[in-house]
C-alpha cells in the first residue's frame, strides 16, 4: 500500500462509504459525539466539567467516570452482539445483510470491547469508588497516577470507536491470533487499531493494578489487619496482583505482533523461523488470568451483597479469602487448555486438564459459602440480591459445562463450536456482568445520595435473565450439532430455529438494557423521594457506609480505627457508629491536574498516528508523552489544604442528617 509523508496510509478510502451499514454506524458515533458536545456547550457546562471531572484526582469521581465509560462501551458492544445475532438468524443459505469481512470486524470488536473496554473499566470503576472507602482510607496511594490510568483506558476505548469511522477494525477476534493477524493475511489497519488500543489501555491497567495493590497493603485504616478487610478488598487485591503479573503478557504479545507487522520481524510468521505457538502461550498466560481479573471482584461484590440482604454475617470468611487466593494462583497454571488441540503431548494436555478442573474446587467452595450465608437468613429481595441469586444458579450451570471442556478429548470435539461460546458467556455474563450490575445497584446510593428505582430495576433484571437463557442455551445445542463459532452464514436448515431463538433472547436483553436506561432516568427524576444523605440505606456492615452519601472529598474527617471484621457493624452494635470528635484537623488533598487528560490525549494521538503510519505525528505524540511526564515532575504546588472549619462545616451538615434519620426511624 502506498503511503504519503503527510498522511501516511490515511486517504479518503478510509471513510466508511463502502457499505451502508458501516456508514450508518459511523454516523451514529459521529452524531452521538457531536450532540454530547453540543449539549455540554448549550448547558455552558464545559467549565464545571473541566474543573470537577476531567481534571479530577478524586478516586470517587474517577470511579464514576470509569463506570460511565463502561456503560457507553456496553451499549456499543451490545449493538455488535445484536447485529451478529440478527445476521445469523437470517443467514441460512443466504448472505444476510453483513459481508463476511464486516461480520468478522463485528465479532472482534464485540469481544475486545466487552472484555477490555466494558468489563475492565466497570470493575476498576467500582474498585475505585469502593476500595479506599472500605479500607477507611482517604484516597488511593497515587491519586494522579489513578487519573492517568483512567485516561489511558479512555484513549484505548476512543481508538476502538474511531476505527468505526476512520478505517476498519481488526478481523482477528478478541485474541488476535497470528498468523491470521500478520501483515500478509491482514494488510489493512484493523489489527493495528486493535494492537494500539490494547497496548495503551494495558499500560493504564497495569498502573492501576500497582496503585490498588499499594493502596490495599499500605493505606488501610489504623488497626485494620488484612484479615479485617471486607471480601471485596480481598478480591480486588488478588485481581490487581493478577493484573500486575498478567497484563505484561498482553503487552509483550501485542508488542511483538506489532513488530512483526511494522518492521517485518519473524516472531509469529509462517516463514523466517516464526512460531505461532509463542503467541498462543504468551497471550494465554495473560488471557486466562484475565478471566479471573474480571470474575474475582464480582465474587467480592456478591460477598458484600448476599450477607447484607440476608441480614446475616458472611459464612466462612476465612475460607473465602483462601479460596480467592487459590484461584488467583491456580489461574496461572491452566493457560494451555486454550490450545489443547494444537498438538501438545498427551501428558501435557492431561496436566493442564487436571489443573483446570482443580480450579473448580475453590470456586465450588465459594458457592457453598454464599448459599450457607443465605441459609436461615431473613432475605430481602432488592435488585442487588436478585442479580446475586441469578448469578449463583446460572454460574453453576456454566461451571459444569466448563468441566466438560477441561477434558481434553471432549475439547477436541467441542472447541471452536458454539458450545464454547455458550460456555464463556455463561461464565462471564452471570459471573462478571451480573456482579457489576449488583454492585452498581448496591453502591449507587453511596455515590449519588439517592437510590435507583426498584420497579425498573426488576424489569431490567427479568429481561436480562430471560434474555440470557434464551440467547445462550440454544448455543449449547448448536455446539452439539456441530456449528462452528464465528460463522457469517451456513447451510444447515436444522440450525436456523435455534439461532432465531437466540436472536429473540438478544432482543429481550435489549429490553433489559432499555429498562436500565429508563431506570436511571426515572431515578434521577424522582431523586427527591429517595435521597439519603445520612448514608446507610441497606444497614450494611462495612466502612464505606460509615460516611455521608456521597462522601466528602476526603472520605473520612477522622480515619476510623478498626479492630474487627465488618468494622461498621461492630461500631453500630457497640452503639457508637460515628465517632464525631470535638475538633477537626485541616486535611491535605491532591489538587486537580490536567496531566491525566493530557497524557490520554497525546497517547491517543500517538496510537492513531502509528495505526496510520503518520510518522511525524507519532514522533510528536511520543514527545508529548515524555514531555508531559517530565513537565509534571517539576510541578511543586500539588496539594491543597482543606481548612478545619470547612471540614467541621461539612461534618456538621452530615451529623444533622444522621440525627434526623435516626430520629425518624426511632
Amino acid at each position, binding site marked *: 500500500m502506498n503511503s504519503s509523508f503527510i498522511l501516511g496510509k490515511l486517504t479518503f478510502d478510509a471513510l466508511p462509504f463502502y457499505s451502508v451499514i458501516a456508514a450508518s454506524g459511523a454516523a451514529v458515533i459521529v452524531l452521538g459525539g457531536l450532540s454530547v458536545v453540543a449539549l455540554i456547550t448549550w448547558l455552558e457546562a464545559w467549565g464545571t466539567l473541566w474543573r470537577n471531572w476531567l481534571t479530577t484526582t478524586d478516586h470517587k469521581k474517577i470511579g464514576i467516570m470509569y463506570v460511565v465509560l463502561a456503560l457507553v462501551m456496553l451499549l456499543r458492544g451490545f449493538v455488535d452482539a445484536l447485529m451478529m445475532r440478527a445476521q445469523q438468524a437470517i443467514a441460512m443459505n443466504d448472505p444476510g445483510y453483513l459481508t463476511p469481512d464486516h461480520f468478522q470486524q463485528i465479532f472482534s470488536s464485540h469481544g475486545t470491547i466487552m472484555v477490555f473496554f466494558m468489563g475492565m473499566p466497570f470493575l476498576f470503576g467500582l474498585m475505585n469508588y469502593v476500595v479506599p472507602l472500605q479500607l477507611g482510607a482517604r484516597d488511593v*496511594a497515587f491519586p494522579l497516577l489513578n487519573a492517568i490510568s483512567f485516561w489511558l483506558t479512555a484513549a484505548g476505548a476512543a481508538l476502538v470507536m474511531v476505527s468505526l469511522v476512520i478505517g476498519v477494525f481488526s478481523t482477528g477476534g478478541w485474541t488476535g491470533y497470528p498468523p491470521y493477524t500478520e501483515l500478509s493475511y491482514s494488510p489493512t489497519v484493523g489489527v493495528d487499531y486493535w494492537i494500539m488500543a490494547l497496548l495503551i489501555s494495558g499500560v493504564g491497567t497495569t498502573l492501576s493494578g*500497582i496503585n490498588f495493590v499499594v493502596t490495599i497493603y499500605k493505606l488501610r485504616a489504623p488497626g485494620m489487619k488484612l484479615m479485617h478487610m471486607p471480601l471485596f478488598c480481598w478480591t480486588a487485591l488478588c485481581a490487581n496482583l493478577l493484573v500486575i503479573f498478567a*497484563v*505484561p503478557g498482553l503487552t509483550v504479545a501485542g508488542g*511483538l505482533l506489532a513488530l*512483526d507487522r511494522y518492521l517485518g*520481524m*519473524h516472531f509469529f510468521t509462517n516463514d523466517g523461523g*516464526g512460531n505461532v505457538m509463542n503467541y498462543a502461550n504468551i497471550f494465554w498466560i495473560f488471557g486466562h488470568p484475565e478471566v479471573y481479573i474480571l470474575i474475582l471482584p464480582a465474587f467480592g461484590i456478591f460477598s458484600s451483597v448476599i450477607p447484607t440482604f440476608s441480614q446475616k454475617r458472611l459464612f466462612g470468611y476465612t475460607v473465602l479469602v483462601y479460596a480467592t487466593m487459590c484461584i488467583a494462583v491456580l489461574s496461572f497454571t491452566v493457560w494451555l487448555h486454550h490450545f489443547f488441540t494444537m498438538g501438545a503431548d498427551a501428558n501435557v494436555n492431561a496436566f493442564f486438564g487436571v489443573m483446570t478442573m482443580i480450579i473448580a474446587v475453590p470456586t465450588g467452595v465459594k458457592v457453598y459459602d454464599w448459599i450457607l450465608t443465605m441459609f436461615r437468613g431473613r432475605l430481602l429481595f432488592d435488585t442487588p440480591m436478585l442479580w446475586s441469586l441469578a448469578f449463583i444458579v446460572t454460574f453453576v450451570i456454566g461451571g459444569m459445562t466448563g468441566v466438560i471442556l477441561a477434558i481434553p478429548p471432549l475439547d477436541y470435539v467441542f472447541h471452536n463450536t458454539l458450545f464454547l461460546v455458550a460456555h464463556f458467556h455463561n461464565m462471564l455474563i452471570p459471573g462478571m456482568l451480573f456482579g457489576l450490575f449488583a454492585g452498581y445497584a448496591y453502591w449507587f446510593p453511596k455515590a449519588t445520595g439517592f437510590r435507583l428505582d426498584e420497579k425498573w430495576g426488576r424489569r431490567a433484571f427479568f429481561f436480562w435473565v430471560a434474555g440470557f437463557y434464551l440467547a445462550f442455551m440454544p448455543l449449547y445445542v448448536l455446539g452439539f450439532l456441530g456449528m462452528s463459532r464465528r460463522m457469517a452464514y451456513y447451510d444447515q436448515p436444522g440450525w436456523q430455529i435455534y439461532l432465531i431463538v437466540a436472536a429473540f433472547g438478544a432482543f429481550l436483553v435489549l429490553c433489559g438494557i432499555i429498562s436500565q436506561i429508563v431506570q436511571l432516568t426515572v431515578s434521577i427524576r424522582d431523586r427527591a423521594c429517595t435521597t439519603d444523605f445520612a448514608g446507610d440505606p441497606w444497614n450494611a456492615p462495612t466502612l464505606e457506609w460509615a460516611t455521608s452519601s456521597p462522601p466528602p472529598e476526603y472520605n473520612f474527617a477522622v480515619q476510623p480505627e478498626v479492630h474487627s471484621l465488618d468494622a461498621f457493624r461492630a461500631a453500630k452494635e457497640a452503639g457508637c457508629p460515628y465517632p464525631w470528635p470535638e475538633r477537626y484537623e485541616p486535611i491535605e488533598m491532591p489538587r486537580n491536574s490536567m496531566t491525566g487528560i493530557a497524557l490520554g490525549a497525546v497517547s491517543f494521538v500517538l496510537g492513531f498516528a502509528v495505526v496510520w503510519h503518520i510518522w511525524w505525528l507519532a514522533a510528536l505524540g511520543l514527545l508529548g508523552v515524555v514531555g508531559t511526564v517530565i513537565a509534571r515532575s517539576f510541578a511543586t504546588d500539588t496539594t491543597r489544604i482543606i481548612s478545619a472549619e470547612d471540614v467541621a462545616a461539612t461534618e456538621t451538615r452530615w451529623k444533622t442528617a444522621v440525627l434526623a434519620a435516626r430520629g425518624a426511624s426511632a
Partner: protein
Amino acid sequence: MSDATSRHPGINLSHARREDERHAEVTVFGFWVYLMSDAIIFALLFATYAAMVGRTAGGPSGPELFDIANAFVETMVLLTSSFTFGLAAVSLKEGRVGASQLWLGVTFILGLAFLGLELREFAGLAAQNATPQTSGFLSSFFVLLSTHGLHVLAGCIWIVVMMVQIVIFGLSRQVRSRLMRLSLFWHFLDLIWIVIFTIVYLPAVAS
C-alpha cells in the same frame, strides 16, 4: 523511629513530618511493585528468546555472530555505572550536592557509552546481514536487547532530569525520593543485563 536508628546504606530519606515518611514508604513500595511487573516483561522476552534460539531459518546462529569480548566490555561499563550510582547515593546521603552531581554525570556518561557499544554491536551485525528481519532467532535477540537498551535510555533521560532538579530544588524530600527510585531502576537494569549476558552470550561461547 529516631533519625539515627533509621540510617541504612544507600539513600536515606529524612522526614520532617510523619505523613512524608509514610508517603516515601508508599512510593518506594509502589516502585518495587512496578519493577516486578517490568520483570515479567523481561521474563517473557527471555522465554521467547529461549524458544527461538534454534529458529535461525537458514541464517546465522548465535555462536557465529556474537562477540563475547564486546559483551564483556558492555557488562563492565554497566557494572561500573551501577557503582558510580552508588557513589552518587553516598554523596547524596552525606549532603554533598556537588559530588552527587558529579557521580550522576559519570553514571550518565557510562550509560551513554553502554548504549554506544550496543549500537555498534547492532551495526556490526547488520553489516553481516544479521538483522531482526533475517530470522525469528534474530528478531528475538534484537528485541530483547533493545528493550533493555530502551530502559537504559529512559534511565539516562531520568538522570538528566534529576540533575536539573537538584539544581532547582536542591536535595529536597521529593528529589531524594525520586533519586532513590532511580537508583532502584538503575540497579534493576544491571541485574537484567547480567541475565542477558548469561542466557544470550555465554552459551554462544560455550558451544
